[in-house]
């Protein structure tokens, strides 16, 4: 479920795209906001926000802006980049509770460190302050509302559909509403014209798929998470391909698989990696086509696609 820990775009792409100053502003504003928060919440927010995030979503917002406008990044765009980190972190906190994850970014998750009450209350606090920060940016408010609603629906849908013998099209639908909605909204926040909405959706789909594949590869750099998906019967891209084999489909749908079942499933998923990579290559090409057709300067968008595509191969 968690697609956050593959946030490792690194400083090189941020520098290559010329966003160091903008990203420094995002970091500074987040730090100032944490310091100005209610003392009751401060330690919780520090734990969640002042960790090792590399801000892939703000980077997406800035790249979409740059692909449409060569001028300096405007205040509403900067502010949106700060607020998207608010909402992204809320989704991480909730995901970690739902997934029963003990660790994120190499240290205890928020609920593990402070308890579920603090984690849930912090989520509400962050959402409320996120909307407050938007002030009169009605367009951004509407987009963030869309995001929260779609994430909620995606999470419920993903949970309801676990351990079901579904297909690649179902995976695409779930991933499109989960990570896809986040990046769709980032693209819209960046371009402010909806021209890049589809690009954002495809980038999110690619991100989600690369994370799925990276998990199967056991790539520690991607934050793991593959075992939880396996145990919970979550429909990942390799899973959707592997369960076309009826014997694997039966194991995947078992309510309480034993260790040998899990090993057989993991092997079947690994065998599907070449097909999954091929599928992701097609998604990446769709995203590149969108960038070329609907932006003035596709270079920053294509750089995002290439960066994301590499995540499955780490």
């Amino acid at each position, binding site marked *: 479920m968690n697609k956050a820990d593959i946030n490792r775009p690194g400083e090189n792409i941020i520098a290559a795209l010329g966003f160091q100053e903008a990203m420094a502003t995002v970091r500074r504003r987040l730090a100032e906001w944490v310091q100005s928060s209610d003392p009751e919440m401060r330690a919780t927010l520090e734990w969640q926000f002042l960790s090792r995030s590399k801000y892939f979503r703000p980077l997406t917002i800035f790249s979409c802006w740059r692909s449409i406008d060569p001028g300096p990044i405007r205040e509403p765009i900067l502010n949106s980049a700060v607020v998207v980190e608010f909402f992204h972190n809320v989704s991480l906190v909730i995901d970690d509770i739902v997934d029963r994850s003990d660790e994120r970014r190499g240290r205890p998750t928020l609920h593990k460190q402070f308890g579920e009450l603090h984690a849930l209350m912090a989520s509400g606090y962050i959402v409320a302050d996120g909307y407050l920060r938007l002030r009169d940016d009605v367009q951004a408010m509407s987009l963030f509302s869309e995001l929260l609603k779609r994430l909620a629906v995606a999470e419920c849908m993903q949970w309801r559909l676990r351990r079901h013998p579904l*297909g690649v099209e179902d995976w695409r639908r779930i991933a499109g509403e989960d990570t896809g909605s986040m990046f769709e909204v980032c693209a819209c926040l960046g371009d402010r*014209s909806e021209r890049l909405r589809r690009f954002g959706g495809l980038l999110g789909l690619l991100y989600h798929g690369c994370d799925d594949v990276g998990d199967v590869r056991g790539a520690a750099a991607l934050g793991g998470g593959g075992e939880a998906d396996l145990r919970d019967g979550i429909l990942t891209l390799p899973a959707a391909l592997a369960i076309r084999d*009826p014997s694997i489909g039966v194991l995947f749908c078992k309510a309480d698989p034993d260790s040998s079942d899990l090993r057989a499933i993991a092997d079947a998923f690994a065998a599907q990696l070449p097909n999954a990579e091929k599928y992701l290559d097609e998604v990446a090409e769709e995203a590149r086509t969108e960038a*070329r057709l609907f932006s*003035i300067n596709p270079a920053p968008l294509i750089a995002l696609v290439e960066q994301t595509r590499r995540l499955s191969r780490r």
Partner: protein
Amino acid sequence: MTDLPKEPTIAPQSDLLGSLFSSWADAWRIGLGVSEMPAGVDVFGAVLSAPAQACWIGFTAWLRYSGAVAEAFARYEASLIQAELDRADEGRGTSPSAGRVLVDETRAFLRRVGDAATLEARRAQHELEQIGELIAQAAAVGDGTSLDHVRRHEIKA
């Protein structure tokens, strides 16, 4: 912003027919001088040619869409035919898992056809907007009007 995107020239490799006609469309537009539209151009003539350009854009969009549908059909042909045979046979010869795969493939085919339709519609709309804006810019230059009103991608907030 007043800066307009250049005419898209890159198409998926598989979209050969669409690319070919798209290139013809580009050449045709350049021949008319519409894509450049320098100051002092015959704006009246450009406005009169707008319906022809709209028709051409629609035509090339239709060609690319037809190519995409043909490509999708070729890709999923075996599954689509098998699904039809199964339906005729009332599914007696197909296991549930094989049936699920056929359903998945059929859905992928339908999604691709829908995606192609949406892409071409958006692309055509984008191209028509560009022509409209070029005409407006040429007219504004001709009569000395400000171009501020055509800032389509202005930040709303």
